[in-house]
């Protein structure tokens, strides 16, 4: 198949998540080497995903943890 800009738009999420058949990768990458519309689109989309994936997993605050365990232990003892 010939990959077009519209296909890139639809397949981008699967492409970045490595969920496509391998032959499609080559075609997409060939398209991305020279398409002036898709290059900035894909770069910024990819960076957005990286930013989302960089959002930190936070620790449970001490007081929240304590409150949870106090409540649960009280409930379990019933």
């Amino acid at each position, binding site marked *: 198949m010939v990959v077009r800009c519209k296909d890139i738009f639809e397949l981008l999420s699967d492409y970045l998540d490595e969920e496509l058949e391998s032959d499609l990768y080559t075609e997409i990458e060939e398209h991305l080497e020279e398409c002036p519309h898709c290059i900035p689109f894909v770069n910024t989309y990819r960076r957005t995903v990286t930013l*989302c994936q960089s959002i930190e997993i*936070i620790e449970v605050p001490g007081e929240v943890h304590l409150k949870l365990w106090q409540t649960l232990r009280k409930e379990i003892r019933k």
Partner: protein
Amino acid sequence: MIFNIKMSEKREGIASVSDEILIEKVKSSDNSAFEKLVKKYEKKIYNLAFRLTGKSEDASDILQETFLKAYHSLGDFRGEANFSTWLYRIALNIALMKKRKEKGKIFEPIESKLFTPEGELTKEIPDWSNNPEAEIENKELRKILTETLSSLPDDYRTVLILRDIQGLSNKEVSEILKISIPAVKSRLHRARLFLRDRISKYFA
């Protein structure tokens, strides 16, 4: 055009055999086993609740209610889904009920017209991907990201949190939300486009 999409699930599963053993022990009145389950999932559930509500106090309430509900309902857990899937469902239901009570909100689809291939690919958006400020360490950008995440409709935000922040697979998310894998992918794609749009405005 129909593409043959391979559903490879490369990420590590969130369930484990030991959950099943722990559940059996809880059912046999071994409460220390329940404490082990809480320890294992406390952080994941807190993070889910915090990212859904944006408030530590609400996340704390959701965390407590989730484990209380799980403790009291464990007798009904038949193992048809993984324990983690079942627990995430409880937490999501509690969180979304809480939010809807507060805001009276129902399903709000992202306006799909905003994100057509034609629209997105012809927009004059600068390629900010190599901008040194496009880093999570950039406090202002992180604030925009968090605020934009909060402004996403719940159905999209939930998928984005579970997939991109918590690192679950499409299959796991589809089981938690009881929607198809293509629906998970579609919501994730729209959510990512929505965020990209907002971040692009910051760099414009």
